[in-house]
């Protein structure tokens, strides 16, 4: 058993294109970009859809649930082991994240997870995931 510990999380570099995502995160909401032209979600968010290059993209509330696509606990060279992962959201896109607040040795591909928000050092909180 390897209980996850809080670690110092670097602040994301907020810019005009991603500001809304991190503003929402500060309010405990996970946003995704959706393209009204090709009807596809994408992540990380862009102004122009990376699938069809339409500018008709909009922010949508994500359900904040998904499953673990892959994961790895980094155990060496860091003060505290932590679990990086891709989570495939119910909306169909995968996002890079951390799995937190659980036994990291028990994390498995396919495990259902839900979003939680963790503070960063001097920046907005960022979405992470914990077993649902």
């Amino acid at each position, binding site marked *: 058993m390897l209980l996850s510990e809080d670690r110092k999380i670097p602040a*994301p*570099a907020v810019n005009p294109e991603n500001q809304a995502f991190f503003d929402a995160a500060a309010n405990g909401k996970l946003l995704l970009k959706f393209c009204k032209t090709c009807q596809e*979600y994408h992540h*990380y968010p*862009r102004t122009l859809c990376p699938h069809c290059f339409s500018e008709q993209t909009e922010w949508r509330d994500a359900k904040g649930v998904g499953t673990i696509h*892959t994961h*790895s606990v*980094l155990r*060496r060279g860091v003060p505290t082991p932590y679990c990086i992962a891709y989570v495939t959201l119910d909306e169909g896109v995968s996002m890079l994240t951390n799995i937190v607040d659980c036994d990291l040795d028990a994390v498995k591909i396919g495990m259902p997870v839900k979003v939680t928000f963790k503070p960063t050092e001097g920046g907005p909180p960022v979405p*992470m995931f914990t077993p649902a």
Partner: protein
Amino acid sequence: MSIKGKAYLVGAYEHPTRKATDKSVAQLHAEVAKGALADAGLTKQDVDGYFCAGDAPGLGPLSMADYLGLKLRHLESTDTGGSSYLVHVSHAAQAIAAGKCNVALVTLAGRPRSEGSSGTQPRSWGAAVPDGPFEAPYGIVTANSYAMVAMRHMYEYGTTSEQLAWIKVAASHHAQHNPHAMLREVVTVKEVLDSPMVADPLHRMDCCVVSDGGGALIVARPDIARDLKRPLVKLIGAGESPKGQAGGKLNLTTSGAAWSGATAFAEAGVQPADIQYASIYDSFTITVLVQLEDLGFCKKGEGGRFVADGNLISGSGKLPFNTDGGGLCNNHPANRGGMTKVIEAVRQLRGEAHPAVQVKNCALALAQGTGGQLGTRHGSATLIFERE
């Protein structure tokens, strides 16, 4: 227009140093350039094209051309991480075919070992990198990025840590014969599995070394190559491709080699089964396995079985790979392993590899590079060479 037969690899040099606390990065570039020119039998005055990537200090090739005292009519600084130098060879052939240069110099050098670099440290690509805010907070480093690919490959295809370990075992069998290799001890599958877990499921021995050093290549026009007194190594196929997260529609277990390899094989007019020696970028064992599948040496998902039981060991295995010991055992200068992949392929085609690992009558070889991070975005480049 094809680059097939339009250019030859006439010079190759690998810096013998593995720790260069007493040298500057620019100096290492100059030393490898001089070594490659001497290997080719050419002089600095013959060089009219120069190629370098992000490891070269300063503004692209401008600083280095000035430092080296090069008079150029063609220069390029494509940076696709560790695969850059394979791309450079391909682009040098294109430039030569188009008459833009006659003799191209490609250099790589760096001293990450002296500077305390590690694959468990975050890498910074600058504040404006669009993916940065969505990755840096999560502690993505080199090791855990590749580890996520390995974890997914195991899940989808049943690949095992034992199978991955065989890649390191094969590399160590080759490295024992290389006096310059950082790790010359032959290791067993058990020793790989017993080495400390760095990033699940990758053990320390699944990871390449961190080393100082560098290498250089000389690419030349066919008639110039024929006037030199070296075995003729002809470029007959090349491919390059970037691969990323596809807007969140991930496919982690396929690398850009699926595209760069197909392009190179089509141009060369040969099949994977024809290849007698393969240099495969080995930042981690999983990097090798995924690229072997994507290049078509085996089917997707069968890489684990393909690499097991010594199949990559020269002399006994079906596909001899990285006979210098590769990044896993020999070196990984500037944290960019593409250059040394090309150099060992050239040695094999010339018959200049160590006798214990030399492939008999090696006439067709492949070099495969990956740069960036397999688990997020990377560049892939494939070169196919023929001895004439």
